[in-house]
């Protein structure tokens, strides 16, 4: 068989994720790329449960469970501890959900990024607080229903643009990725491993119960998010230079929304609004990517 992603499995079966959990897939891929010389820290999130109860674990690498708001800076601390002890050649990874990244963890992340501490921060984004039963986060997309944004008061704020916020921190590398495109995800992690400083990866991770979707289409949905331009895959280098990872022809947004219960209440008009927002953002990204071409061309040359 031809493996398009590393055969090695660091994460094991038996974990506690729901059927069809995108977060579980994301971890499986990440550990393939990172390998066993990796230390992880998780703030409170679904993965605090998925990994398994004491005295068991599923990830196969050292893991420090930490307080919800601390992932990035605990990783900074681990890195400093390793440096103090002369232990090089270990990936230090903060692994957090969208709530732990966009909301309660953003300050620690901002601090780590400002110091440019040498860690990889992975946010698996399932677009709500799933571990506590689907409450709104600032990563919840406009229009979605959660238990704190009921249908009549669905989420009226736009999804926080975390990539842009990180980019504004002049972070050396930030990239979006998706569980539907593991090869791309792994490539990005490999690049992140290869450079110094703070690296941020933003992974869209389907959550069947949270999105009120069938587990079997978890990968399909993640793919549709990219194909409908709702969740574009791209990189930002040095906080300034954009690069699209793929630029698929746009599929109708409803392909993505329809199978998800969380968008069921939206009127056609509202879907059109949403579509407009998505297109606007997408064209901004394309524009920035265009602007950044010379940078990447120059980079290629020097290689």
């Amino acid at each position, binding site marked *: 068989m031809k493996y398009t992603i590393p055969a090695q499995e660091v994460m094991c079966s038996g974990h506690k994720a729901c059927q069809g959990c995108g977060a579980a897939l994301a971890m499986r891929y990440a550990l393939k790329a990172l390998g*066993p*010389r*990796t*230390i992880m*820290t998780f703030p409170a999130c679904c993965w*605090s*449960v998925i*990994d*398994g*109860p*004491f*005295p*068991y*674990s599923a*990830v*196969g*690498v*050292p*893991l*420090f*469970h*930490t*307080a919800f*708001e*601390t992932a990035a*800076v*605990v*990783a*900074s*601390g*681990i*890195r*400093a*501890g*390793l*440096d*103090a*002890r002369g*232990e090089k050649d*270990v990936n230090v990874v903060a692994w957090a959900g969208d709530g732990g990244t966009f909301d309660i963890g953003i*300050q*620690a992340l*901002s*601090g780590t990024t*400002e*110091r440019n*501490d040498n860690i990889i921060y992975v946010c698996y984004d399932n677009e709500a607080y799933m571990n506590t039963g689907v409450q709104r986060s600032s990563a919840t997309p406009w229009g979605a229903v959660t238990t704190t944004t009921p249908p009549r008061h669905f989420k009226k704020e736009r999804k926080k643009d975390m990539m842009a916020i990180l980019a504004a921190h002049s972070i050396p590398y930030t990239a979006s990725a998706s569980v539907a495109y593991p090869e791309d995800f792994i490539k990005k992690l490999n690049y992140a491993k290869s450079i110094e400083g703070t690296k941020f990866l933003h992974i869209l991770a389907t959550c069947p119960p949270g999105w009120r979707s069938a587990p079997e289409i978890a990968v399909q949905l993640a793919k549709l998010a990219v194909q409908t331009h709702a969740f574009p895959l791209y990189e930002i280098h040095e906080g300034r230079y954009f690069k699209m990872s793929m630029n698929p022809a746009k599929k109708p947004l409803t392909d993505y929304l329809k199978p998800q219960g969380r968008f069921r209440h939206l009127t056609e008009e509202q879907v059109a609004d949403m579509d407009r927002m998505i297109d606007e953002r997408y064209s901004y990204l394309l524009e920035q990517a265009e602007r950044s071409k010379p940078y990447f061309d120059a980079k290629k040359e020097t290689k």
Partner: protein
Amino acid sequence: MQKVIMGNHALSWGALLSRAEVIAAYPITPQTEVVELLSNMCADGDLDAQFIKVESEHSAMAASMGASAAGARTFTATSAQGLALMHEVLHWATGARLPIVMGNINRAMAPPWTIWTEQTDSISERDTGWLQIYTSSIQEILDSVIQAYKVAEQVYLPVMVVLDSFVLSHTNENCDIPDQSKVDAYLPKFENAYKLDVNKPAAYGGLTGPDWYYELRYKIQKDTERSLDLFVETGKEFGEMFGREYGLVETYKLDDADTVLVSSASIASTARPVIDAMREEGHKVGLIRVRVFRPFPSDLMRKLLEGRKKVLVVDRNISFGMSGAFYEETKAALYNVKNSPPMWGYIAGLGGRDVPTNVVRDMIEQTMKEDHPSGDIIWIGVKK
């Protein structure tokens, strides 16, 4: 080496001599000098440590946790609002069994804004599982940091070294700075048996149900109790090596005392000349300075206080709706004791109100005058 240094720099020197490997701290009055000197020590190469300039105290403690979990000896310092902001992660450091040492400068809690001394900040962390040492001289601050690591790393629990804002933090005093080689002998390099190790992967702190959580807490309590003996042992050993012995409490003219003053930190220090003066006048008064407040040395306090005629406890802190913490806990410790002495509880010096010798004397005299405590705590010196 003899030097005149301020209390805050005694913390920095303690960290330097303990060969702290990672420091993560955030500035707050009256702690800033601790961090500034450490920054300079690092810049000058005197201290070979990773310095993480975090964006808040919350992150200072979180970074310390990461570093400690990775096996490094870790130091931080804070005060009042900063300490309070760490509260959740203080619990974390305990539960994760991380032998972090932290200096805390006692400053009264806001609002209103204030920077003067009061112990309510550290007292209100008494339930987090951190061991707490209350110091009363510049020398003791330095020595306590070193001793704190020695205890912390045996019981895998974090230790807080506490000092009064300004009254200790900004007071310059004679201080013996011990030789590095001697400190190294006293406090060898630490190998954390539970550190994050890619060669022995394990997950720390995973979800624990009612089946085993209780037992994990029990272990913490047992090790906390074990630390009582360790404070005594390591304090003795310190005495043998450096000529300055430390215990759980410090007593003064206690042996034959009828009336015993129990206090801590700078008030207990100021009380010594008062005891001297009153002794000269023929009063059988004595002093216990509680040095280790967590774990509370209940057994020792029982031994020392059982059968006394009167005991007064002076607190520079207040748990609203109850009393000062040293009073409350001393009473709790001496409950169930046959010959338990009547005990008076005084509140004094909150928000940095000065507590000079005459105020200390007032409290002792008031206690000597009364037959029995009224039951209420007595606020000394409220303008009424």
